[in-house]
């Protein structure tokens, strides 16, 4: 169906794809597996016309093709569905579905469009609320609308970029059934993922990528999860992260939050009575599917958002209404999940960002900042030409190191960390975990928020699961019941 031969793409010094060959067949689901930065998305972007390969050819049904842009690819039957559905919030589901269709008649017969949307929905089990505005939909629904949008145009090749990242487990199951029915209809499906379980569950063939190259191509039935993991990582691993060891003395509560309430808005879940206490030397891990109030909780604890009611105490001092300054003055460090725009000012230099939170509250001293920056760059292994480089040009791992260097070098008493390893390669993630562990040994009280359940389970002493802005499950790590966690995350816990 769609065949790629020797595709290469270079971004500056990085060879993102190195002579990649890929064959997508009709009636088949092809999984592309790899770590972050293995080149999976670059490959998909070249297949869908978003990027032009530096070298190599694409063949569609044996004929050499060249896609000018994604609409061009879509017109020839190659459609891509992105991780985050790209919909217009102020348009309805069906308006979003027909948006961009060049064959759209001048007069829009909505009843006809809706009928066609419904027939596609029924055929593939893609339930969405026809007539609702895209802005009202959940992440899962938005993705289904994006799928319908692609199907509406009629595709022979469907590329899915990490489609399960935003879904709850039950939705993942449904998506896999849908993918199965696409394949049954003769579509060539490609699914990008870094989750082994998904590869085993849904694919017929699997391509493993590492460092921009194809490491392995094999029918899924003829391999094992362990073999795929080895190919993906390059060396056998038992767990993604090793549990932090070391004698840690847990002390008194340093961070206390009582009955936090924030009303929910259209864009985000609220908090509906959250109480937590974090003791020094303890890591409280907050798990949950994205969008259940985790980010908001982090913002409230660190003073960015003032709660409607309830209180936050840091080291015995009430910081509830005092904003970020009060929280920071009493020893808070905060590593937000949005690194480039919240945690850092992208247009400023690395040195300036390393003193960002100090300089804003007092003490602006350029030469001292320069000296400190040189030391922190060294200590935290930030790969950068010098302290004056513009921060926005750094890679994800280095951005995170800049934030870590700034937030941890002040020896905070309380640390709130949100998705600390999202998008990082294994070595960077390991570094981040070691730093968090080191801080815990120093007696810092840590709140770790992550969508990656394994990360929470690997690091936390106490695990809390948030669901729709409430604590659905809370336990010490020793008494943890994995099944209960799964149920609590999907809202079916006790």
């Amino acid at each position, binding site marked *: 169906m769609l065949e790629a031969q020797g595709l290469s793409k270079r971004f500056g010094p990085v060879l993102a794809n190195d002579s990649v060959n890929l064959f997508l067949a009709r009636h088949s689901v092809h999984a592309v597996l790899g770590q972050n930065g293995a080149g999976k998305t670059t490959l998909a972007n070249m297949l869908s016309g978003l990027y032009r390969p530096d070298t190599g050819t694409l063949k569609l049904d044996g004929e050499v093709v060249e896609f000018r842009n994604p609409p061009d690819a879509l017109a020839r039957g190659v459609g891509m569905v992105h991780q985050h559905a790209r919909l217009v919030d102020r348009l309805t589901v069906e308006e979003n579905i027909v948006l961009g269709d060049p064959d759209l008649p001048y007069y829009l017969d909505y009843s006809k469009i809706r009928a066609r949307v419904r027939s596609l929905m029924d055929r593939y089990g893609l339930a969405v609320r026809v007539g609702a505005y895209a802005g009202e939909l959940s992440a899962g629904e938005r993705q289904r609308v994006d799928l319908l949008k692609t199907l509406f145009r009629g595709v022979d090749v469907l590329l899915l970029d990490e489609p399960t990242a935003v879904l709850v487990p039950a939705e993942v199951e449904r998506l896999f059934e849908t993918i199965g029915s696409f394949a049954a209809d003769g579509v060539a499906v490609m699914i990008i993922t870094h989750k082994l379980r998904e590869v085993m569950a849904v694919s017929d063939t699997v391509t493993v990528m590492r460092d921009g190259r194809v490491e392995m191509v094999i029918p899924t039935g003829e391999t094992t999860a362990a073999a795929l993991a080895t190919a993906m990582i390059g060396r056998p691993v038992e767990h993604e992260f090793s549990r932090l060891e070391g004698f840690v003395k847990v002390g008194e509560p340093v961070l206390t939050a009582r009955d936090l309430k924030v009303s929910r808005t259209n864009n985000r879940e609220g908090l509906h009575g959250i109480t937590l206490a974090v003791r020094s030397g303890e890591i409280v891990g907050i798990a949950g599917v994205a969008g259940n109030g985790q980010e908001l909780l982090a913002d409230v604890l660190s003073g960015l958002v003032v709660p409607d009611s309830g209180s936050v105490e840091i080291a015995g001092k009430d910081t509830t209404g005092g904003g*970020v300054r009060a929280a*920071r003055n009493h020893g808070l460090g*905060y590593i937000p999940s949005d690194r480039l725009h919240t945690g850092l000012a992208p*247009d*400023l230099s690395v040195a300036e960002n390393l003193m960002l939170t100090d300089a*804003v509250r007092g003490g602006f001293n350029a030469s001292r900042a320069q000296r400190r920056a040189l030391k922190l760059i060294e200590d935290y292994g930030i790969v950068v030409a010098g302290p004056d480089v513009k921060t926005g040009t750094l890679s994800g791992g280095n951005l995170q190191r800049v934030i870590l260097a700034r937030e941890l070098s002040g020896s905070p008493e309380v640390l709130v960390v949100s998705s600390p390893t999202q998008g990082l390669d294994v070595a960077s993630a390991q570094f981040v975990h070691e730093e968090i562990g080191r801080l815990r040994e120093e007696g810092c009280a840590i709140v770790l928020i992550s969508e990656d359940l394994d990360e929470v389970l690997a690091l936390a002493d106490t695990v809390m699961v948030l669901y729709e802005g409430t604590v659905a499950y809370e336990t010490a790590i020793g008494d943890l019941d994995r099944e209960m966690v799964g149920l609590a995350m999907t809202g079916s816990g006790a």
Partner: protein
Amino acid sequence: MRIGRTLRWPIAVEPRPTAPPWLKVVVPLASITSALVVVAVFLAFRSFNPLEVYLEIGKTAFGSWFGFADTLTSATPLILTGLAVAFAFRVRLWNIGAEGQLIFGAIAATGFGVWIGDIMAPPIGIPMTLLAGMFGGMFWIALVAYGKAKYGVNEILTSLMLNFVAVIFSYYLVDGSTSPWRDTTLIGHPVGREVASFLELPRIGTTRLHWGFFVAVIAAVAVYLVLRHTRLGFTMRVMNSSPKAAHYSGVSIGALTVRVLLISGSLAGLAGAIELLGRGGRFSPEGFAAGLGYTGIVVAALGRLTPLGIVVSAVILGAVENAALTLQSMANPIPISVSIIVQGTLILFVVGGATLLSYRWRWIPRRAGPKAMPREESNT
């Protein structure tokens, strides 16, 4: 096997973080030259000799010591209003109200100069009167700042509309009432009251250039220092780069907005006080501001928001405006609106040129396209 590139355009345009230093000099010069060429075409259409016109402009604005002094005198308020606009824009706030703040600066300076300033010795009286002008400008932008910080009211609209209120209020003070701002000793067309003459800014030699020019240059240096070397400037850079990062690091965005706008307003107010004390010490509403506040927006854009750039662009625009007056009174008069055309064209080219600076243009030699390639590999 490797297969040739298939780009349709032989030129690649890529963003780049920093331009080489020589380009930063060459591009603005090329932009100004291009602007002059375009205006030349326009002049030629109206059957003027462009070279002659440019020569005349150059001679008027820079040719003699007196002409040059006049140019700098015209540039003085433009430096300050340009700084006012640019300072606010450093945190993406649009102060379109420099005109109104300038008028209120003049009103406040007149008020202070008439009642309190005349009992002081000039070394204290002049700075105090200028300070009064700055407070006048601050007062007039305070409402804009409050609305923006507290309720998020669009500062473009409020600052712009308050210009008209300021103009009309100034007419009320002098023409429409017997307020203390009106000189009631004179009969005839109403004029404003004059501040004590020893409060007027000393002039340089026999020219019209006064010390206000140096005050404006000092203000530009001060703005540079604030932006580059103070906590406020640092906070502004964080805010400009990412408001979220500013909030995250503990900046009160409302308080910062108020501070920046008050400083911006005070610069425009200073322009008003300097115009008052530098040009006769008498505030009369007719043509007092005459678009100095609006031209400040042009100056700020042309100066790329940097203090040095603003001084340079204010001098250029001051020269053009001065020369335009002369051109109009030539044997073959050129309409005064030519200065507006020059302004507009300069902006287009200079701002456009600066945008090009952040991209690299690379010529890519065309190679064989896919159609020319052998097809022996199509074995699927």
